[in-house]
């Protein structure tokens, strides 16, 4: 009888195009005392999709992304990522799932006393990539984002636009299957925005599912993808862009 091998990687098991990557059913998040950041959110993101999340400031975009990557827990409702109820995952399984999710946070979460290279490397280090591979990947990413000369600079000394790109580089460095990007172009000029979007598009072509939260109409109005608009924590519209 063949032995059934337990897959170490929770996300890999259901990571097939056409499958569901993110599933939210009737999810609400209420902050004390009575702030309804999200109410009754239900939607699905397919594996390999490029998905946009838009809405005014305070609409609940960041809250939604935090729920998907298990930084925060919903007050009500069910969230599944790659077929796993993410709020039931613990310990090693949660860690392995998180290694497969890259997040570029709105507040960057960079280590200001570490160099750019060290910051980008951290996501690869925790999944035990080889030091040589890490160095190579860091150099590639910096080149794509036009930050080659910042390799050894401390991230605390960089401009916000530069920090934003470092945060993005870190989120994609480990080639995650799911990439959550919160406001990737807020501090960037048009040309740099283009480069950032190129990088994300390339990751998407390579098979990664990407969710981008943004105000920036210039990035979600091009191309054929779904856009979900939040208003006051509710889904206002969910439609496919086709331009």
């Amino acid at each position: 009888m063949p032995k059934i091998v337990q897959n170490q990687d929770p996300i890999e098991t259901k990571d097939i195009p056409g499958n569901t990557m993110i599933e939210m059913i009737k999810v609400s998040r209420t902050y004390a005392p009575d702030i309804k950041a999200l109410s009754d959110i239900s939607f699905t993101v397919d594996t390999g999709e490029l998905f946009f999340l838009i809405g005014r400031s305070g609409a609940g975009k960041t809250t939604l992304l935090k729920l998907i990557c298990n930084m925060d827990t919903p007050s009500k409702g069910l969230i599944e990522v790659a077929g796993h109820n993410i709020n039931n995952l613990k310990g090693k399984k949660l860690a392995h799932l998180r290694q497969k999710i890259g997040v570029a946070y709105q507040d960057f979460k960079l280590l200001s006393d570490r160099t750019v290279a060290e910051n980008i490397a951290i996501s690869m280090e925790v999944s035990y990539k080889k030091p040589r591979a890490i160095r190579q990947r860091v150099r590639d990413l910096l080149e794509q984002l036009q930050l080659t000369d910042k390799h050894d600079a401390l991230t605390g000394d960089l401009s916000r636009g530069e920090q934003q790109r470092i945060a993005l580089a870190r989120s994609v460095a480990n080639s995650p299957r799911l990439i959550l990007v919160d406001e990737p172009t807020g501090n960037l000029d048009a040309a740099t925005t283009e480069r950032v979007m190129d990088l994300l598009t390339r990751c998407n072509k390579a098979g990664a599912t990407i969710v981008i939260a943004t105000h920036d109409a210039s990035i979600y109005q091009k191309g054929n993808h779904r856009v979900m608009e939040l208003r006051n924590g509710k889904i206002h519209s969910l439609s496919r862009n086709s331009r």
Partner: protein
Amino acid sequence: MNFWFAVFRQAGRNLRQTWTSQFMTFLTVSLSVLIFAFFYLIYTNMIGAGDRLSDDLRLIVYLEDDPGPEMQEQLRRKINNFDKTESIQFISKSDAYERFAEQLGEDSDVLTDMPRDFLPASIEVVPLKSLRGYNQIKLFSEYLATLPGSEKVQYGQEWVERFYYFTRLITIVVLLSGTLLILTATFMVAYTIRLTIMGRHEELELLKLVGATNNYIRTPFLLEGTLQGLMGSIIGLSALYILFQWISLHFTGPGLINLFHFTFFPPMVIVSIILGSIGLCTIGSFTSIQKFLKI
């Protein structure tokens, strides 16, 4: 990149960031090990000396008169009634005289004018090895004093008593310094690791977010605790050994030290102290990191 490479890199970063408090902890652990081991060394040597001395322990019952053979048999039975003994030897007045003369050696002529029965007869009782507690000896001697015809019982009471109380005192000091060692090793290490954790809180939180396993986060800190314990105990014990050598070098010759046959710890005890110290320090760091991981 394998796990241990990551662990050592992380431990190195910790060390670089907080080396002053790490060094203070290391000193504290060394000092506690030194203090504890110092008293423990005295304790083991006391016990050793006590064993050697009690090998020579005998109770002497001075009698009013030489007992006849029948009386000797009765006394022997009486003594063995209380407790079994290693040996019971009767010494008559003339035996005592001869022993004394022998001890005097060349000066024995001072005895020429003395009557041969001027020394009292006695019984030498060597108690069983098992009967070596201070209280037991005391009870036994009290019993022997009630024997018919006994005048006085001697066994170097004062000396035994002092030795006994000193051993008690040292036992207490060993227990206290042992507690001190446990407290300092565990809490100092826990405290410095807490400091390190707080200083790198941001990074550790981020590590969790990018999917570092608990072992990835925990092991460098455990390793740090283990190293503190290992280094601290080795340095503490080495310091004690140097002190020990110095004392034996400067206090040789006739004196107390020779009587005590001062010896250092056997290897087993050294290994135990090192392992104990490692264990305590690792527990200290474990509690700190565990608190962080639970949040």
